[in-house]
């Protein structure tokens, strides 16, 4: 045995058992977050120092109720524990159980004992005095189960040193099998599979027989054998799983009676009292909507301060680079390509951090489960759940953190639907685009009744986006088929104070994952757009620039005006300019000309870039919305001699910006969160088709 390399430690336990706190306490800040192979379920790993000077790798497995899975996370745990590599490694398992409901926690524990993993039981205490705190005879429990039992506290780290001391043993003794009889499987069938596949553990074999369809690593020989024997013996997996569970509880009940003395309190529980208000059918829903608006408010307005600082920092850096470096292509690559790209990544950090801190509070206090319960009958119609509402509301500020938030939805289909429709909700990046276009359409002083007409138009655009998201979700619910069981059945955990350390670690991890993973894609697209906007076919760009200089050198009022004219000529003759002209036949039916085409292409980086590009195309220096609007409204189409931004075109453009993806950061984060280019492109395609179709209809009607 390699003496330098300790065994791994896996953290296992039910959801809401306090496992995350224990993991954070053991590993500290140096954690790695990735995905389990093939799925988007967080896999957290870290290291902990043992008293003997060695370090031990710690893996946090998703919260699970038993080895008979009903959710994606639970399948991961089953697959991990039955994987040949894990079975060969035999890692130590630290099983975290809450003292309040020991009976239920022991189900999964006894299954792990039967798999012959070295298990340590760590019992945590519910912090709130709200729960009936039972008196547990730990010694008796340890003797009965024949495994070490420690009382631990993830928040203070209490008891963890004893666990670590225990882990320094090279070969901790294994507990005897908790049960030696498998319920629900005929012994002849079990024995045949054990003999033929060379498995020596009966419970491991039983799980293989029951769940072989979900274990991709089984040999074809074994799968065929199990299928054939299942037919032969009329084996039914469901019945076997129920029988196994019932048999275990029959054994667990007497153990609990011997070791746990429940302490009944006369007063009604704290949780019960709060829930009279928070889960009231009407008051509770109103409260939830207020919470959602609070989240929106936080990422829309509180995040804007740090976002302004980030923008200022990058524009100041750019300015300094331009000041000290010669005016060259390299400088442009540095400022307009690299720094612009980096700024486009870092700008999302405040929103992501704030949203995940808030979601963390909702999850850790136990409120989120109530919100899911309250909104279930509404959201299931659209194939989503209450957690989707957090994404949809956050989407009004920005789709990027909103899509990342969908990771808390454990049903894969509900999660995919949420990711698919969230970008349809109008985000804050659409506001500058909407503002300038609405101003072209409706004079500022117009009003309908008491309401300002421009404001009503803005509201109409937002509502259109929300409606589209719901309709598309309802359609996708019918179109996408999965084998997942759709159910609500879940625990409403007792309310408790959030563990602040967990919240900050979680938010920091989300930021890190975004910057390193989605950031790569954003940077690549950003650099690509820079190349397309700064290079042109042949020497056309140079020619155009020289032409402008020759024409305006004497007539231009100052250098700024000349620079603006040069920028316009360069953009029009760049690759992106040519692309804009090239796609004109495609966008003509929806009322756009090639100049709008260029703006559509550049604003794929982010929607608000539309305004900047329009300013460049129409030779407007600085950030002057009024001048730009005037120039746009005066623009005449040379072919028709009519204004370009007439009602039909402007409305068509507005509708296009409601539906079109037009955001590389969203695209990048969808790729990371679905772990699939297929769904990323499905989304891009359906949103583009929807945008084009809706714009076409609007243009036809108003033309």
């Amino acid at each position, binding site marked *: 045995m390699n003496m330098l390399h300790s065994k791994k430690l896996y953290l296992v336990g039910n959801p809401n058992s306090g496992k995350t706190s224990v993991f954070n306490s053991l590993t500290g800040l140096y954690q790695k977050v990735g995905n389990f192979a093939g799925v988007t379920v967080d896999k957290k790993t870290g290291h902990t120092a043992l008293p003997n000077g060695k370090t031990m790798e710690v893996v946090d497995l998703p919260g699970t*109720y*038993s080895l*008979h899975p*009903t959710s994606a996370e639970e399948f991961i745990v089953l697959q991990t524990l039955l994987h040949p590599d894990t079975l060969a490694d035999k890692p130590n398992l630290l099983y975290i159980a809450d003292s*309040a*409901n020991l*009976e*239920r926690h022991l*189900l999964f524990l006894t299954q792990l004992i039967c798999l012959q993993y070295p298990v340590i039981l760590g019992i945590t205490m519910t912090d709130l005095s709200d*729960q*009936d705190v039972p008196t547990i005879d730990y010694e008796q429990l340890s003797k009965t189960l024949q495994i070490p039992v420690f009382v631990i506290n993830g928040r203070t780290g209490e008891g963890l040193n004893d666990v670590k001391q225990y882990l320094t043993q090279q070969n901790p003794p294994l507990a005897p099998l908790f049960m030696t009889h498998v319920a629900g499987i005929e012994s002849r069938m079990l024995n045949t599979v054990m003999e033929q596949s060379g498995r020596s553990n009966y419970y491991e074999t039983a799980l293989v027989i029951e769940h072989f369809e979900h274990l991709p690593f089984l040999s074809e020989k074994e799968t065929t054998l199990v299928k054939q024997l299942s037919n032969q013996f009329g084996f039914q997996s*469901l*019945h076997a*799983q*129920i029988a196994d*569970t*019932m048999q275990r*509880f029959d054994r667990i009940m007497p153990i609990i009676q011997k070791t746990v003395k*429940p302490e009944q309190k006369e007063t009604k529980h704290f*949780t*019960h009292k709060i*829930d009279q208000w928070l*889960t*009231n*059918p*009407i008051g*509770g*829903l109103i409260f939830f909507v207020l919470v959602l608006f609070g989240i929106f408010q936080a990422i829309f307005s509180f995040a804007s301060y740090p976002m302004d600082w980030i923008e200022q920092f990058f524009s100041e850096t750019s300015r300094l680079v331009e000041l000290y470096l010669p005016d060259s292509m390299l400088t442009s690559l540095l400022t307009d390509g690299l720094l612009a790209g980096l700024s486009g990544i870092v700008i999302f950090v405040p929103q992501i951090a704030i949203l995940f801190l808030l979601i963390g509070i909702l999850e850790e206090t136990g409120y989120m*489960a109530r919100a*899911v*319960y*309250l909104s*279930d*009958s*509404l959201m*299931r119609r659209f194939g989503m759940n209450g957690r989707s509402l957090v994404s949809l509301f956050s989407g009004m500020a920005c789709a990027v953190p909103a899509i990342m938030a969908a990771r808390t939805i454990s049903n894969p289909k509900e999660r995919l639907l949420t990711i698919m429709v969230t970008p349809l909700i109008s985000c804050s990046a659409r506001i500058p685009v909407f503002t300038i276009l609405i101003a072209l359409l409706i004079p500022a002083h117009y009003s309908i009744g008491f309401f300002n007409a421009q404001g009503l138009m803005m509201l109409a655009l937002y509502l259109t986006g929300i409606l589209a998201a719901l309709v598309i979700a309802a359609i996708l619910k019918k179109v996408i088929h999965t084998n997942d*069981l759709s*159910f*609500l*059945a*879940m*625990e*409403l*955990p*007792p309310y408790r104070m959030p563990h602040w350390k967990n919240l900050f670690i979680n938010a920091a991890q989300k930021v890190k994952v975004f910057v390193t993973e989605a950031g790569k894609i954003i940077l690549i697209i950003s650099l690509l757009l820079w190349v397309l906007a700064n290079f042109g076919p042949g020497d056309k760009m140079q020619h155009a620039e020289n032409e402008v200089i020759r024409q305006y050198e004497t007539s231009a009022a100052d250098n700024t005006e000349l620079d603006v004219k040069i920028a316009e000529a360069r953009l029009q003759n760049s690759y992106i300019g040519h692309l804009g002209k090239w796609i004109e036949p495609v966008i003509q039916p929806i009322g756009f000309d090639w100049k709008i085409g260029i703006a559509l292409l550049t604003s794929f980086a982010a929607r608000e870039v539309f305004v900047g590009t329009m300013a460049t195309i129409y030779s407007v220096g600085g950030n002057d919305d009024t001048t730009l609007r005037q120039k746009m409204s005066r623009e005449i189409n040379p072919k028709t001699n009519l204004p370009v931004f007439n009602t039909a075109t402007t409305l068509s453009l507005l509708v296009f910006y409601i539906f079109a993806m037009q955001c590389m950061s969203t695209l990048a984060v969808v790729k990371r969160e679905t772990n699939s280019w297929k769904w990323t492109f499905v989304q891009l395609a359906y949103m583009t088709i929807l945008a084009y179709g809706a714009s076409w209809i609007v243009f036809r009607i108003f033309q």
Partner: protein
Amino acid sequence: MIPIQTADSLLFNKPALITAIQTSPLTVKLLQLGCLPGKQITILRKAIGNSPIYVQVGTLYLALRAEEAAQIIVETELDK
């Protein structure tokens, strides 16, 4: 013969005893959550619309859809 009574048809705050769980793909889930034969179940609240109910099973609080609660077979004081 007394018709089978299920947990979705219970009155508010009237406890009943779980006698069995009907066999379905959700049976294991309900058992895992603590809906075990012999435990006391009480409907505490209902959400808006036709669906979920908020129940207490033993010392635990659970949220169940009506069709999920319908799989829990119960026995009330009157049945005895």
